[in-house]
């Protein structure tokens, strides 16, 4: 039976490829023209927007805040998510279905609703502040609106469910018999985790953490709502530049910087992990 499957793929490839090329080309090209206000742009190409970005400390600070909050959120998501993913993946009772269902619901409910819940929890007379003030830890209500802690918490809620699902599928590809073998041969639980589970899951975990990081870098909602107009990340700034200042070219420049930063950090991490592995530092 000879079916030419490569032709089956062709229409899809053309659609997706065309959409990628067209959309990316238009905004990247636009980012090289100066805004003249009210959505009009100049006719001559120049680097003026990029110059402005890299000489204005506000823009540079925004880029740094974006990378920092995304990186922290990705790391915290990993630390909170990995033990949960491991628990579910190795569980053999009916309970694992219920635990999984909790994760999947948390993944699929829109972040706006979750941020809404967070605001209620952290409001002045909300659960957290009642507990903190009742225990005498703080005198004035603690708030997560308008500071970077809030943005990181919001980003974590955006990615944690998805992160657990990713890590779950990574752990499932590691045969449990390897863990048993290590323990039968006398390895303690910790030693087994360190010498068997960690190195085997590292490639998958790296990919997972990078995906989570990428999600955070493009996340707009939690940063916009919890930043409260005081913390700016690049996605928030892009939306403001388009909706309020109506400067499409500058927004294009911001988007281009964001895109390139994400790609560079991804390539760099993959390169570092490869170096690490070839130097036999990780797989002992």
């Amino acid at each position, binding site marked *: 039976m000879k079916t030419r499957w490569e032709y089956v793929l062709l229409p899809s490839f053309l659609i997706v490829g065309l959409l990628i090329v067209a959309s990316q080309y238009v905004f990247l090209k636009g980012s090289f023209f100066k805004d003249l206000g009210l959505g009009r742009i100049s006719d001559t190409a120049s680097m003026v927007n990029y110059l402005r970005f890299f000489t204005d400390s506000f823009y540079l600070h925004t880029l740094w805040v974006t990378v920092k909050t995304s990186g922290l959120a990705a790391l915290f998501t990993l630390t909170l998510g990995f033990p949960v993913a491991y628990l579910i993946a190795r569980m053999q009772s009916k309970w694992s279905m219920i635990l999984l269902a909790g994760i999947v619901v948390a993944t699929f409910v829109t972040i*706006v609703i979750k941020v809404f819940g967070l605001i209620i929890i952290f409001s002045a007379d909300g659960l957290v502040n009642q507990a903190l003030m009742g225990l005498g830890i703080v005198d004035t209500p603690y708030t997560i609106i308008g500071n970077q802690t809030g943005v990181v918490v919001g980003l974590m809620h955006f990615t*944690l469910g998805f992160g657990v699902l990713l890590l779950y599928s990574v752990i499932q590809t590691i045969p449990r018999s390897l863990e048993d073998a290590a323990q039968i041969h006398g390895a303690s639980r910790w030693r087994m985790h360190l010498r068997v589970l960690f190195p085997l899951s590292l490639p998958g975990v790296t990919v997972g953490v990078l995906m989570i990081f990428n999600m955070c870098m493009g996340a707009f909602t939690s940063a916009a709502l919890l930043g409260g107009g005081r913390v700016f990340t690049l996605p928030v700034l892009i939306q403001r530049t388009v909706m309020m200042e109506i400067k499409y070219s500058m927004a294009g420049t911001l988007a281009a910087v964001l895109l390139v930063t994400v790609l560079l950090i991804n390539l760099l991490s993959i390169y570092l992990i490869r170096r690490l592995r070839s130097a036999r530092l990780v797989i002992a």
Partner: protein
Amino acid sequence: MMDSTVHRSREVNGDTLARIAQKRRKGPPPKRGYPWGKVSHYVYCALSYIFLLSPMIVVIGASFHGGEYYTAIKFPPEDPSLQWYTKIPTAQFKALALSFGLATLAALGACIIGIPAALGIVRGKLPGRSVISSVFRAPLQIPAIVTGIAFLQLYYLFGDATGLYFQGTFIGLYIGHLFVATPYVVGTVTAILQRFDVRLEEAAFSLGANRWRTFRRVTLPVIMPGVYAGALYSFMVSFADVPISIFLTAPGFVTYPVELFYGMENDFDPSILASSSLVIFFCLLVLLGMQKLVGLDNLLRSGSR
């Protein structure tokens, strides 16, 4: 990646390897201390779950609060009532209907584009297979907000050239959602196809089924769990999206998450709590359906990329 069938062989005659090892040891099993490691693991996971689920539980709880307008948001709720459920404005229902229709069509479109793509990637004689599959994965690598503004500018340019403006129309919104939804179907179906036993198709073919019949009766049923998983992911991604929709919607034509977003930024109406709770229940319901249809673990196993 290792073969996923390996770890199913760990049971030998119903005994785990650990138990076999223990049987072979002479004398009573070695005494062990209290399993603190295990207990702390459970406690840690319980805290993660509380962190993860508390916002949704609080939203549902607070939606039953029966207070007046300005004291209307309270958790735990007092004087339980359904008052906010009766006060959901029609704008929110309209937005919900739009989101639902959009997400359904996005999932459908993602399958139509994604299934042939996955078949081609796994089975086609392709030069540069990895490049092609990374093209299909690219929309996930592009930050969502960048996709939003990129499509907005594309529509402006296209409109200036042809007089056909897509921003703020259903088609424009749909193309943007389809763009981010498709990679999920490609990913899940590719994962299943890579484990597909081609001899099944050869058998069907040699027994006289034609190509289309073989595909319908053999290939499709096998890849169906992957299709369901991919469709579910793309539905939910579309249903929850803000950063793309916020650029492509227009006043009076907004998806539900965007409506909520503006609601939270501007005039804060407690009826949002009620409609949000309905959405959470809806997500639970979809999940239950999926659990009945294919089983949650099958769904997620095929989702591994």
